[in-house]
């Protein structure tokens, strides 16, 4: 085994930007994420072990019988490290040293909707600075302007956890669709790439071309204020009456009551997220005339008995014969010996020669003295 040092040109880092698509379909209080059905298992109502319409963070406990979940635990010791879910006071008073603090892996996430129609609106107020900051992109962001005062308007706030979009929602990818009895009555898109959610369909519909709200791309919020009638049918949502954008996604984890006519409304929300993955690329070289010897026991001819000579002052092992593995078409002829190794792994070491990673090739690569290779190693970081 030989150590080689990476040169400056052998290492580089680049970033892969990906745009994963997400689709949420909401109907009568049920949310379907990326068209995944709600699967009931043999032991649980939903196989992922989290409520329907939620994603499971770890997906560890799939259809586990009751009391058989995999769970993390930590022993309270001098480090005083606890699980995130353990309150500080409880950790200090209820948990003794040496006791275990148990957690759970059934952590979940989903979209939430907040219908804000009162003056008590802490969630909206918390976004005031952010909304005003983005006013340079569109005046519709402005917390208070001629387009409306978000301190008093009825607001439909849809919150998306960052696990469902990454670092930001991709501009121009947002589409909100409002269906009544299966027919599209309104569609919003951020077609101007500036966060304005503009009604683009159906063609000729009421409010077409109007801005019904804004999207906070980095923060993962849709702030909907459009209150015009999209359809004349009376539907039980936040209020009983015609469909409006302020009622969009009714039933999406908002604690709403599902009425008989609510069932005819359904909602689709689509967008693309943005993720960044840093990739470290390493070039490992196997030069001419090097890496042609192995310490693997099978490298030697097993039929060759190793000679030793010993005396009162010495013990000398004679060199062992290397097995000739050069292929020959003839059974009765020993081919000319050539040192041959097969490279099966490349190990990565730190500057103190601690092994920190191993890269394996799919099939061993034959290496002779007159061949040289460059292996390209990629590591997502």
């Amino acid at each position, binding site marked *: 085994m030989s150590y080689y040092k990476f040169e400056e040109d052998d290492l580089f880092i680049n970033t892969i930007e990906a745009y994963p698509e997400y689709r949420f379909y909401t109907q009568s209080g049920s949310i379907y994420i990326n068209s995944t059905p709600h*699967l009931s*298992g*043999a*032991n649980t109502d939903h*196989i*992922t072990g989290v409520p329907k319409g939620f994603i499971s963070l770890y*997906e*560890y406990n*799939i*259809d*586990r*019988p009751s009391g*058989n*979940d*995999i*769970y*993390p*635990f*930590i*022993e309270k010791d001098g*480090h005083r*490290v606890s699980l995130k879910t353990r309150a500080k006071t409880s950790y200090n008073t209820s948990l003794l040293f040496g006791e*275990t603090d148990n957690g759970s892996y059934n952590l979940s996430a989903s979209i939430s909707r907040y219908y804000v129609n009162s003056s008590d609106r802490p969630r909206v107020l918390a976004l005031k600075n952010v909304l005003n900051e983005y006013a340079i992109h569109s005046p519709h962001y402005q917390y208070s302007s001629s387009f409306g005062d978000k301190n008093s308007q009825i607001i439909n706030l849809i919150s998306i956890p960052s696990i469902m979009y990454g670092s930001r929602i991709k501009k121009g990818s947002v589409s909100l669709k409002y269906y009544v009895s299966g027919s599209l009555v309104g569609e919003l898109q951020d077609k101007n790439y500036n966060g304005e959610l503009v009604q683009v369909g159906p063609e000729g519909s009421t409010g077409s071309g109007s801005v019904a709200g804004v999207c906070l791309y980095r923060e993962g919020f849709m702030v909907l204020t459009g209150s015009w009638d999209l359809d004349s049918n009376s539907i039980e949502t936040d209020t009983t009456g015609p469909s409006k954008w302020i009622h969009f996604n009714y039933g999406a984890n908002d604690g709403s009551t599902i009425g008989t006519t609510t069932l005819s409304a359904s909602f689709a929300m689509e967008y693309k997220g943005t993720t960044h993955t840093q990739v470290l690329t390493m070039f490992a070289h196997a030069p001419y005339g090097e890496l042609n010897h192995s310490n693997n*026991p099978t490298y*030697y001819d*097993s039929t060759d008995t190793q000679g030793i000579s010993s005396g009162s002052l010495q013990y000398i092992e004679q060199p062992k014969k290397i097995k000739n593995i050069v292929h020959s078409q003839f059974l009765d002829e020993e081919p000319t010996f050539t040192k041959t190794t097969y490279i099966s792994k490349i190990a990565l070491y730190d500057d103190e020669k601690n092994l920190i990673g191993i890269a394996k090739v799919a099939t061993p690569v034959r290496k002779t003295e007159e061949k040289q290779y460059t292996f390209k190693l990629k590591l997502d970081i």
Partner: protein
Amino acid sequence: MAESFYKSLDIGKDVVATRTLLHEAIPLTGTIVSGTYGTDNIKNYAHGMFQSVYDYPYLSSSANHIFDITAGVSADSAIYSSVSNQQSKKLNIYNQMAQVLVGYDHTGSIQRFDEDGDVLAGGSKLDDVIFLNFARLLTKDEIKKGTFALTLGATQAYATPFTDRILIQDTSGSDGYLVNSPVGEYGILYATNAAGTRLNGNDQKCGLIFYQAGVCALTSSIFQSQLSSSAYMNSSNEDMEAVLTGSNIEAASDALRHRIYNLQFNNTVELNSSVYFCRVNHNEFNYSTNPTYLSGSKIRVKTQSSDLPVSYITTVGLYNDNNELLATAKLSEPLKKSSDTEFTIRVRLDY
């Protein structure tokens, strides 16, 4: 950050590296391994060298791989010459596992699994072995020593295997583990009666558990000579020896799964942390350059000239030698700082 005040950390006094052990409890009931999903969560391969067990039907993207089962027979085994089905594969499996887990002797020969781990002393060897290779997803950095517990059905009848049960544990694991393996530490598995009295005496050595590798090597004799009478391992009432000689590895894996009543262990993850003790002396950080700190050229939090200057610490920034910001630590709530108070803020960085 409002105030750009850099304070150097004393590497010897203010920076400490710590290691915390986080564990997970992994219960794998027999109903997962053999029962609830029939064979939908069992994956067999055309090469026939091992069988994979999932926690849910493996065609589902939600399924997690939990372990593989395979069987190996040493060339020195008493039954080796009788093996008529997949003989070379069973030998190769044994040799492959042995060379990785036990290593070579001074002649370059593969060493066999040793019953008590004392390889140099000789003693009994494990020549007919069933291997359980646990997924890294479950074992993480290592299986926690002293927590491995495998309950097997030991009743002779194949149809009702769990009337009598034996419990296999690494009872000496927490302090009596061995280190003479190329893949790290390992413990000896001992079998005791859990229900009924089928064992020929309690605390019988019946295999090895390799903690970091996440491999359990179980001797086939636990179903045979170590019981008062051999257990029937398939519906043809064959014992384990007959299964290993006359059937393939898949059948041997099925036979073991049929008798797994419960399997559980805890794993360990090492969390490495650096702790930075950021010391705030009484005469430091009492002012802020935050624009909101001043109102009409006066300190907002100071109403009389005799009042002490006050600031609120919200964030600690960690910088490198070139004063480039590397990380910020946020306090859960602002900390009131005045010239009559001192703090040491403990910043922990996990990696």
